[in-house]
């Protein structure tokens, strides 16, 4: 899976979680700047990511996933993005 595909999937899950159209998501949404990112929806998002990518996030990973960029960083490491087949 390439980065673009991963980012696309995460944005799709974020839009679904926050109940908005994907086009209305900021370029790099983060907890500080996106008002809809509440504590409940943060957990909904993290759990949805766990389900979609069949992973289990650690506490440190969950705490660090405060923006699209950081989410992608964690997922890239978890699902070994970009490694040769």
């Amino acid at each position: 899976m390439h980065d673009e595909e991963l980012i696309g999937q995460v944005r799709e899950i974020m839009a679904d979680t926050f109940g908005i159209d994907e086009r209305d998501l900021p370029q790099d949404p983060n907890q500080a700047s996106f008002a809809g990112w509440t504590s409940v929806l943060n957990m909904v998002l993290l759990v949805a990511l766990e389900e979609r990518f069949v992973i289990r996030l650690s506490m440190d990973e969950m705490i660090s996933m405060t923006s699209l960029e950081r989410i992608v960083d964690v997922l890239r490491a978890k699902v070994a993005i970009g490694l040769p087949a």
Partner: protein
Amino acid sequence: MTLSVAMPVPGHALGNEQRALAVALQRMTSAVWHDPVGIGIDVVDVNDFEKRSIEKFPYFYSRCFSASEITYCRAQARPAQHFAVRFAAKEAAVKALASHTKLAYWQIEVVRQLNGQPTLALWTFDRLAPLTELCGLDMKVSLSHADQWAVALVAAFTRDHAHV
């Protein structure tokens, strides 16, 4: 309004009910001022849980709530209110303890005592055993919910000051 009850006006005697309330408030205030190692508060939109029922999002609920919490909330007339206020309590506890330890939501359980008073039980990360030692801290929790909003306040105390 609360402070006007807790602080009697000179020359005006308090009734028994007012006196009891004033004493309770003074004790709470005293406890908080004595050794507030941590305080956390959180407010949750009940609609977030109305829109995500346990039937549609079972994994989310199993990651956030204990089996006992789920059983209790599902037995209520409006489960979303009860899930929401418990979620608020977990987030408030995380905030209250932020400078001491990191806890996941599933490690924090709201337990109702026989008199209905809520307390917090803490579990190990794998949820297999009670977390008996938390840096010598005890916690108190207060919950409230209305039609749309659920709120929880958690205060963490050193053990000597927890029993007020």
